[in-house]
Every structure is written in C-alpha cells, then in structure tokens.
C-alpha cells in the first residue's frame, strides 16, 4: 500500500466520526501536493502544465477553505458569470476527481448507494453526493447547473440543494439553436444572475463579464495556435494533466491566470522537438489513475494525447458586446449538446485536423449520453480511416475498471496502429 492510499484510508476512518477533521486532512493533502508539484515534479513536465497544476490546486483549496465563496457547478455552467462575483466554481467532476486522487472515492460512492441513489448513476455524481451528504464536503453558497449533456446534472444538484438548503439555479439549455431558444436561455441567465446577486450581496456588472469574455477569447486563440503546433511537435503530458486542462478551458476560463497559462503553453511548444510517435485524440473522460494507461501515456515518447474533446467543446469567439447572448449561444452550440451526429462530425474534424493516428473513446460507467453513441462515432471515423478504440471503465472509481481488459484492448490497438 503506497503513502497516498494509507493517507486515504486514514481520511476515510476519520470521516466516519469527524467529517470536519477529514476535510482538514484533505486540505492538508492538497497543500502538500502543491508543495510537491512546485518542488519535486518530474522535470520532463512542461512548465506551463506545472503552473496549471498549481493554479488548479489553489482554486480547489480556496473553494474548500471558504465554502461561503464557492458555487457548486458542473463544467458546462457559465463560470464567467460566477467569476464576476469573485466566487470559485467548484465542479462536481473536478472535486470528485480530487477525492479519487486521495483514493477515497469509495467512501462517497458507497454512502450515496446506501441513501438509495442508483448505483448506475455516474460515479462523479455519486461521489459528490456521498461526500456532501456525509458531511465531508461543506455546502457551498449556492449552486448553478445546466441541463447540458447529462440527466444527472439536474437531479444531483436538486438533491443537494433540497438536502442542504443551498439555493440553486438550473439553466435549461435547449437542444438546438434558434433566436427564440437563445432568448429563452438569456432570460434564465438574467434570473441566475439575480440569484447570485442575492447570495453574494453584490451587484452584477455587465462590463466585468465583457472583460472576462475578452480574456477568454484571447486564451482560446492561444490554445488554437498551440494545437496547430502540436500536429507536429512533441509536448509531454500525463493523463492527470489532460484532466487539469478542464480548469483552463472551463472552470477558470476567462481568468488572467489561465490567459497566462495559455500564453506560456503557446510559447513553450515552439521550442520543442518533432514528435514521431502515435497521436491520439481522446474522447470523453480520462481515468487518470489507471495503471496501464498511465504506463503508456504519461510523459511518453511513443504515444501522445493531442487533446480531449471536452477541452474543445466550443471554439467560436465570444461577442463581448452581447455577453449574455454569447454565453447562451456557447451553451446551446456546445459539442456535447444536441444530436450525437453533430458531435461525431466534430470529433472526425478534430481527428483529421490534429493528425491523429487513432481515437480512444472512454465509456465511463453511468454515462449514457456518451456510451450510447460510440457505434455512430466508429462509423464516422471509418470514413477518414481513423480507428477507434472503445474502453469501458470508470473515470474515478478504481473498482469499476479492470486493468487486464484495458491492457489487452490498448495493446492490441497500438499493435494495429503499427
């Protein structure tokens, strides 16, 4: 048993009798991790990623230290608005991943199961529900969720809001764009802002939002230029870092810190060597803890994950002169919203554009919206002769992934790529 697992076991034992002490241990663990990243991280890791790692850890630590300034959100929520209130968006997906990083995901998941929550629900959601309901994670000031992608987004937030008296706003995102559907969503954004104003006792300033959108546009341009370089260049990363990218493209998007990160990323890749290995496009979540995947992808010279589609789910520039309409359009036209055919086409474009040799789709336990379309994606990728590997498992729950199966499938896929 390694040190992290031992520490995780200690957190779980403490959580049963004293959840607050367990939370303090989690915060202490994050502080240690921040120190480790700063002082001892593998030197092969690009410095931009090291910076991203530290920023993400800081964000989560702040959200846990001051829950009264944090907002529960999903990764598709309009965090740009939350940012205007000086609050931290604490996403279900990211916090659950952090808990899994401490190897304590089974604590929250089993707790939710015992409450009667379906064991087939996405484990990110179950973990978050269990962690909050058991008292391990303190309630946030309020919650903002969208109906995008997954049924769980509505249900999980409502459950937590009812149970813990946390004000919540659900943004009902229409499946397809029209002027009317955009107006419907803008109307909801106005109501959501009103809830945030009441929660934080602060007036919302549209100018602040416009400024955030401008920064986000600049960041996105930098990322686009980085990806253009990445077609040919080597840029080592790890599975964990690919997930940390969600902070840059979603949870902290539009922040000066993330603009700095993207600028650094763009500058750093210019100095790297040519990549001769196999390029992979990853679709959906990454089980960053999975041993076989880690051994093949982490800081590898042979296999490089070019991007995760989740980080490229919306690429159009936002209009700072019509910020709410821009955000509404961003949510409606998100890659993960609407028909699967639209997503399959976009993944096909990305695979082609990023010169990928293969695509890996990870079917995360409980995620019907992604798993249900894998066969359609396979056919779409066949049109451009890019093979698709379908892996089954769980993004955070170690009990839900079988290493032997993943290893066999992955190695056969690599043999196929040559």
């Amino acid at each position: 048993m390694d040190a992290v697992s031992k520490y995780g076991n200690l957190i779980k034992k403490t959580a049963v009798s004293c959840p607050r002490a367990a939370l303090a241990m989690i915060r202490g663990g994050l502080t240690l991790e921040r120190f480790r990243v700063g002082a001892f991280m593998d030197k092969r890791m690009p410095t931009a990623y090291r910076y991203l790692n530290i920023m993400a850890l800081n964000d989560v630590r702040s959200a846990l230290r001051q829950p009264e300034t944090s907002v529960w959100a999903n990764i598709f929520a309009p965090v740009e608005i939350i940012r205007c209130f000086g609050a931290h968006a604490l996403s279900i997906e990211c916090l659950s991943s952090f808990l899994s990083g401490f190897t304590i995901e089974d604590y929250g998941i089993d707790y939710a199961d015992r409450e009667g929550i379906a064991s087939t629900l996405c484990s990110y959601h179950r973990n978050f529900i269990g962690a909050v309901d058991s008292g391990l994670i303190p309630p946030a000031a309020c919650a903002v969720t969208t109906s995008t992608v997954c049924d769980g987004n509505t249900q999980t937030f409502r459950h937590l809001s009812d149970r813990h008296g946390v004000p919540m706003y659900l943004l009902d995102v229409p499946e397809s764009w029209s002027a009317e559907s955009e107006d419907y969503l803008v109307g909801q954004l106005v109501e959501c802002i009103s809830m945030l104003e009441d929660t934080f006792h602060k007036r919302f300033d549209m100018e602040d939002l416009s400024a955030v959108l401008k920064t986000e546009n600049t960041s996105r341009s930098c990322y686009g230029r980085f990806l253009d370089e990445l077609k040919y260049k080597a840029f080592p990363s790890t599975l964990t870092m690919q997930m940390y990218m969600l902070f840059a493209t979603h949870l902290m998007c539009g922040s000066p810190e993330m603009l700095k990160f993207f600028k650094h990323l763009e500058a750093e890749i210019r100095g790297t060597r040519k990549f001769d290995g196999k390029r992979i496009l990853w679709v959906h979540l990454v089980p960053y803890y999975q041993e076989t995947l880690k051994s093949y992808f982490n800081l590898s010279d042979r296999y490089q994950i070019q991007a995760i589609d989740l980080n490229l789910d919306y690429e159009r520039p936002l209009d700072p002169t019509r910020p709410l309409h821009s955000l509404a359009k961003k949510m409606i036209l998100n890659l993960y919203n609407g028909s699967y055919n639209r997503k399959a086409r976009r993944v096909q474009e990305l695979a082609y554009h990023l010169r990928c040799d293969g695509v890996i789709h990870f079917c995360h336990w409980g995620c019907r919206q992604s798993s249900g379309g894998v066969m359609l994606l396979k056919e779409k990728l066949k049109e451009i002769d890019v093979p698709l590997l379908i892996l089954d498992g769980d993004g955070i729950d170690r009990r839900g992934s079988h290493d032997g199966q993943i290893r066999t499938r992955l190695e056969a896929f690599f043999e196929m790529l040559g």
Partner: protein
Amino acid sequence: MIGYFCKYAPIEALTACGAKTAILAPTAYNFSCAEALMHPNMCSFTKAVLEDFEARPLEGMLFTSCCDSSRRLIDVLRHRYPNRFFYCLDLPRKLCDHSIRLYAAQIREMVSAYEQYSGSTFSCELLSRICDEKSRGINVSSDQCKAFRQGGDAGKRPLFDSERSKHTHPRIIMAGARPDASLIRLIESKGVRIVMNMCCTAAERDFKFSPDPTLFEYARALLLQLPCMRMDDTDRRWQLLSGGIAADGIIYHSVKFCDIYSFEYARLLSETKKRGLTVPILHIETDFATQNGGQLLTRVEAFLESLTPAAHAAFSSSDKEGQNPDPAHPECLQNENQNQSDPVYNHNQLSDGFAGGYVLGIDSGSTSTNAVIMDRFRRIIASCSVPTGAKSAQSAECALCLILKQAGIAREDLSQIVSTGYGRVSIPFSTLNLTEISAHAKGASYVNPNARTILDIGGQDSKAVRFNERGEVMDFVMNNKCAAGTGRFLEMMARTLDMDISMLGPLSLQYNEEIEISSMCSVFAESEVISLIAQNKETADIAHGICRAVAKRSLSLLKQVGIEPDIMVTGGVAKNPGLIKALEAELGCRVLSSENPEITGAIGAALFGLES
C-alpha cells in the same frame, strides 16, 4: 403506426395529421442487437425499444429529449432507418410562457414535418375534437391530482392513514420509472389496488380549451401534467407522494440504468426516516427483460406480507381462497409474543382450529431443497436437505419422502404443507406458500428470539431482513439480478480456485495478506481472481479477499435495511466461517448463526403453517 413513450409527446397533434400512434411497452428476450448498436450500459427500456423496433419496424417514432438514453436511441434509429419518420421535440424543463411558446413552435414544426413525410394535412379542428374527447375520459388519478391542486383536504391528510385494516385490498401508490405491463399485471393479480400511478409514463392531460384553441394552449396542457422527475419544478409530485394520497404503501419502480427516479426514492427514504414514519416502501428494479419474474414475485409478495403480516394466506393460498381461517388472531399473536423465549412448547398458544398432526415447511431454493416437520407444540420432529437439481417439483417430492421416513409418519398426518423459496409455486402438494423473506424472518426469530436482522445469502440472491419480536418483517432489501455477493458468486470463485466450496471459508481463515477484490461485478471479480492466481498470490489470501468482498456487499444491504441487533446469518452460506468472520469485522459486532442455517426458511414456513 408511430410509436412513442414520453407522456409529453404531442400525439393528439400527430393524430390530427391522420397518423396512428401507439405507446410502446416492449419486453425483450435479450439485448443482443441493442447492445451491439448502442452499449450494454444504456437504460434497459431504450434497449428494449430498440430490440422491439428491430423485430417489427414501425412507420416511425415520436420522441422528446426526455433523457440521455432516449436521445441516443433516436440518434441510432435515425442513422439506421433514414427513410422512416423520427421526430424529437426538445422538451423544456421549465414552465413559463417562454418555454410553452418554444414547445408550441416545435409542435408546429413537427406537424409540418409529418405533413411533408406523409402527404397528409393537419386539422386544428380535429385536434380540438380529439382533445375534447380525451378530456371527458380523465382517470381516477387525475381527479385526485386535481382535487389536490384545488386545495382540497387531501394535502392535510397524514402520509399514510392508519385505517388500512378497513380495506380488504392493500392500496398502493405506484411511483418511479415506467413499469413493464407484466409488473402491473403481477401487482394487480395479488389483489392490490393501485390508487395512484405516478410513474413517468402516466399521462394525465387536462384538455380544457377555449372555443378556438391554439397550439399554445395545447402545449401548455401537455406541459402542465404532473411533472416527471426530469422537470425543473417537481414540488407537485412530492406534495402528492408525501401527503396527498391515502394508501397502505408505495411500490417504487426503477429501471436498470435509468437513474432519474432514484433521487425521489432516496428523498422518500430520507424524509420518512426524518419524520419517524414507518411507511412501507418496496423498491423494485426491472430491466424490461423476461427472465426475472420469479424474483419480482418474491419481492411483491413479501412486501404485501409485510403490509398485512398475518393475513398473507388470503392472497398466497394455493387454491382455496377464503377457506383458510383469517389468521390475524390477536390472541395467537399475543401468546406467541409471550412465548418467544421458549420456542419449544406451550399448549396455550395453539389456536383452537388446529386439529392435531404435523406441519411440513419446505424451502425450495435454487441450490438445495430443505424440509422441516414440526409438531403442534412447535417442536422440530425431523429435517432434511436435498439438492434442488433441474426440477424443483421433483426434489420437493424427494425431500417429502425422505423427511416422512425420518419422522416416521405418513403423509396423511400432515395437516398443512407450507412451501417457500424460489420454487414455492411449483410444489404441487403445498397447501400454502409464502416468500422466503417472511419465512426466514419467522424461522430466525424461532431459532434465536433476540435476532432482529438477518442476512440470508442464498444461492441466487441475498436479502437483508429486519423484523420485530414476533418474526414479522418490518423491512427488507434484496440484491438485484447480479450474482455478486450471492452463494453462486462464492461457488464461482471456489471453482476458479480449484477447490470445493466447503473449503473456501476454513482456508480463508489462514490468510496472511489482506487482498482487495475490488470489482463490483462477479464476472470482473473472476477475472481479478485469475489475475491474482497469475501473480502467484497465496490461495488462502485470495479466499479471504473473496469472503471480504461478499461481506462488504452484504454490509451495504444490511445498512440499507437498517441494522438492529442481534444480527443473524441464515442460509447455507452461513456455514462459511470465513464469511462470518469477515462480516463480523465489517460490522464490528458478533454475528449469530445456527447449527443448521439452511433450514431456517423451512422452519419459518412450518411455523406459518402452525399459525394458520
């Protein structure tokens, strides 16, 4: 024919275009096609719809964007049948003028799309007439909802009235995800009256329009139905569920891989606990496949037995309904209560109707058939156990011959034969039958009067049952169809380790290293064990890991039912000392067993025979 399944689907508008519509209620024999076209982890209902469509393709389907699985289903169907009519309306979650306008606009677009597809023409007048006709056929549940909405006294009533003894048939609220038609038939066949159907497909449209109705009014009527759990504001559901309807219990249904309703179920559990209510709730999970009828029957019957603990014979009598005396004898129950500490004998506790002779309890399980003969003084005269084999009726006959011989009595001396277990309905000579859940509770209470919670790990399934001092079931949970955590799982693992099942437990006690078998699925767990063998791990350590895995799973069941000491393990698996040790370690307390744990159910069945 256009198929649909969402209650918000504007089928009246489609009918006004000349289309014929049919609600889909499929049952699948297997999911081979659906799992190849989508993924095994999709909602079972949508997989069944896809199987059904493949078997007999319809003209098309009308969808709403109601859930993740159905959205993917339409993507797959559109791709596979490009020339059929598939239309998906984006169903708003909010109820406001803006969302109603959006939905009305979509209905208009759907009408145009169907006109274009079929060459027919939409008639607004016809839509008005169809809606008018429907509005005159509003069902009972709608009336109840309406009364509640209009502020009647329904909302002031307690969650469950205490006068259920006045009603001859149990009154049930059916809630949750869409139920299979066979499930409703099964429930109703047991004499249950469903007083309120709150399942997601239960349409309750109130079409009261102006003389010249618009699509806006129609869309509004659709969206105003009792909200399903997908909607933003579900307070109306909760008000009805928690206070509006007088009933004896709730059957809460969920579909495998559909999670939406589990949240309402969790809230129901939490609220009843918080408010100190003892609301009988049965949670049933189905997967729209045909193979789980036996388990469903057990759950429903056990639930009904727990609603009217002593009156089970009224619905479970094999053939002579009404001939059995009503066993709800207060004296009988009282006397039994007084004599819990002495399970052997007391003349006073016998009912007057007991004419002498013996009672046979027979438990037909998936692995073994166990029988017990008791005399009128509740003494065990004989017991035996035979393997069930391929034919449960044959093994029951064999157990009967064997036990009569052992007891030295003739068949005519048996005044009652009570069957229990999976094969209970297939034993032709039984006069009464009851579920193994009630039988094990009763039997455990006899063997150990202080026991209040049992864990029955059977060959096919595991159950945790909480009961009172009279051995009457207060609550129970049962594992789903997955074999993990059952006797079958242990057998499978023992086979993988190349040993007899009886050796697994004793060997596990000799472990040195703690090994975690983490997989939740029995198939994955087997692969995990094979990996451990390949790593040359000690067999005793692996065996210990297996026992711990089952103990952990069992702990979850026990926690769901609410652990009340003493805890006892029944069923053949209780003979596994490794499992008992692992369970004690997980629970942090002593776990009781008995010398012959496998006959607990048969003892309970015999006791029911005596009481009836």
